[in-house]
């Protein structure tokens, strides 16, 4: 669906993106993560046919985005990080303008606009002026505009930036829904938890260079060097900690917020053995669990090397 090959973009002497390679299959949702100024926006703009790359190329459906922008534009939906809205225009007029600009036939326009408003939960604001909407609603409106012409590939640049928690969750729900609709999505963010639950791939970029990319599970497993176990005991926590540290399959153990966090280095399927050992030795266990995926840890681990 999307292939970025050796993409390099230089602004004068500054290299914003340095021979970047990415690959997205249809249906993939890729989290594109990196600190501010890492080159995320530049990459997305090149794919969106808005920037000429210094070298390398990007292909959408095997069509070169730079050579044939007219063919690529109908396939992509781009949502910029900073977007302007036309004031003095109503919500439906705003969408009507883009529907006409994307050559959606007149007889289908009203239906398409209504459907899109339904998806983005803006149907009640159909006749409101764009300038009267809250920031979160404007963001949703921009997303509505982005999916209006039914693009196959969505390029979303920081879609949840600058939103309050509630609007942020609403946008996340919306993105999850779009993922379920089978769209290929490239979504950038500098905040990781935002992406953790609905991306199946991530790419981490720093100073224009791709640090790591691939399936979320693979990357997490590779970086963590083990599974984290979260254990809560009823009593005798200190003794349990000492006991765990002596076990061969436990690398390290510490107490965090009243729970023991232990790094398990054995076979992932056989972690129950630790619980078994604890119980056998008379410890009373209240809970025993693998902690969830923590992309934040991965991110810190992966990017630290580059900076230092």
């Amino acid at each position, binding site marked *: 669906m999307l292939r970025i090959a050796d993409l390099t973009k230089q602004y004068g002497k500054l290299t914003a993106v340095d021979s970047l390679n990415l690959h997205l299959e249809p249906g993939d949702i890729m989290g594109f993560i990196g600190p501010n100024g890492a080159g995320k926006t530049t990459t997305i703009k090149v794919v*969106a*046919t*808005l*920037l*000429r790359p210094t070298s390398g190329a990007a292909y959408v459906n095997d069509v070169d985005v*730079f050579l044939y*922008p*007219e063919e690529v*534009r*109908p396939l*992509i939906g*781009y949502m*910029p990080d*900073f*977007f*302007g*809205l*036309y*004031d*003095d*225009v109503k919500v439906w*007029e705003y969408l*009507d*303008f*883009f529907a*006409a*600009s*994307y*050559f959606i*036939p*007149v007889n289908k326009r009203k239906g398409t606009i209504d459907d899109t408003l339904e998806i983005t939960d803006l149907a009640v604001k159909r006749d409101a002026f764009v300038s009267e909407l809250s920031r979160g609603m404007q963001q949703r409106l921009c997303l509505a*505009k982005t999916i209006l012409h039914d693009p196959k590939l969505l390029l979303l640049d920081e879609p949840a930036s600058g939103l309050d928690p509630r609007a942020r969750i609403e946008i996340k729900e919306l993105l999850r829904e779009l993922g379920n609709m089978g769209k290929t999505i490239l979504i950038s963010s500098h905040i990781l938890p935002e992406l953790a639950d609905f991306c199946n791939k991530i790419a981490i970029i720093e100073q224009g260079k791709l640090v790591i990319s691939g399936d979320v599970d693979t990357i997490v497993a590779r970086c963590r060097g083990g599974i984290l176990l979260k254990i809560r005991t009823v009593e005798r926590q200190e003794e349990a900690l000492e006991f765990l540290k002596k076990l061969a399959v436990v690398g390290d153990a510490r107490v965090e917020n009243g729970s023991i966090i232990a790094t398990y280095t054995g076979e992932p399927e056989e972690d129950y053995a630790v619980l078994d050992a604890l119980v056998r030795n008379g410890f009373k266990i209240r809970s025993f669990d693998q902690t969830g995926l923590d992309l934040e840890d991965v991110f810190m681990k992966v990017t630290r090397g580059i900076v230092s």
Partner: protein
Amino acid sequence: MSFIKRVLKNRRRIDLPVLVQEMRIRQRGIRPFVLMFIYVAVLSVVTLLVAELSRATPTFGSPQGRHASDLARVGQELFLALSLAQLVMISLIVPAYGSAAVTTEQERGTFDLLALTRLPSWRIITQKLVAATAEVLMLTITSLPVLGIVFMLGGVSPLEVAIVFAIMLITAIFLGALGMLCSCCFAKTRSATLAAYLSVIAFLAGAPLAAEWIRTISGAGLYGAMEACPFMVVGTFLLVGGIGAFVGQGFLALIMKRVELWRTRAFRMAVFGASYILLMLMLSVPGLTVYMTGLFYGAHRDISLPMFVNPFVAIVVFLKEGGASSYWWNGLAAQVVTATVVFAVLCTFIFQYVSTIKFRALRRRA
């Protein structure tokens, strides 16, 4: 009926999203009403002034009372004054609208969204130009009630009104296209508007004045002028050479834009320098210069070339020379009006073409 049905069915073919959008943005709020009010107010003040003046001037009316022909002359004077006032306001309004068309999209942050649509660049540019000039059309229509006074006084035929309005509208489109070109060339609305106004002033006032001055020189002989004020002559030469080389550069850029070498700055500078020197050499051949000025002014010693394509001059000459006479088409008025209209239309096409190329380049910034 079947025709109407067919048109309704094929509405997609006459879909003008950018125009509709621009109209929605422009016509909402109090601004259009304020603009209309000022426009009509200025025209009303002009009407009152002309009425006052005509009462004070003894040429109008005799001690015995006024005749119909005197009233008709007042009507003609009034129509001329109103037309010029309208043209002045158009020259002030349209360049500002045109020059804001593309830059505001960039400043508002909507440019990327517009750039990614499937609309071809020429359609966006054309629709934006139509939107900018449509407002002028609206303003000229609001001026009709004031013009009613002219019809009441008589002396002006509907054909004359139609032709003057046509000149005004074509000028509006031309100046709008000029503003649009500035809008595509500059990143900020402020600089684009400034450039547009400077160009308009240069075209409407600067060029005619300069041409008059050159004509005076050519009348007195080149060497006479050289002796009288050599710095002025040298200065004019430098300026004319610079402008000529700049214009040539623009045309070369259109042809050469696909050539790799043209993209290097040094090469472009070299071409500019070479054409400048070439032009200076050509200008410094006295025989050639005298021949050229003679070519320009030989046919019409009394009117210079930039005057020929100036809409103000066109309206004045048309109403003064042609006037109500049914044979106006054979005179100087016909030539001036035709030259003005043809020049404006030609320039509009060229400006639109260059704007489209510029806009297309903006859509995929290098």
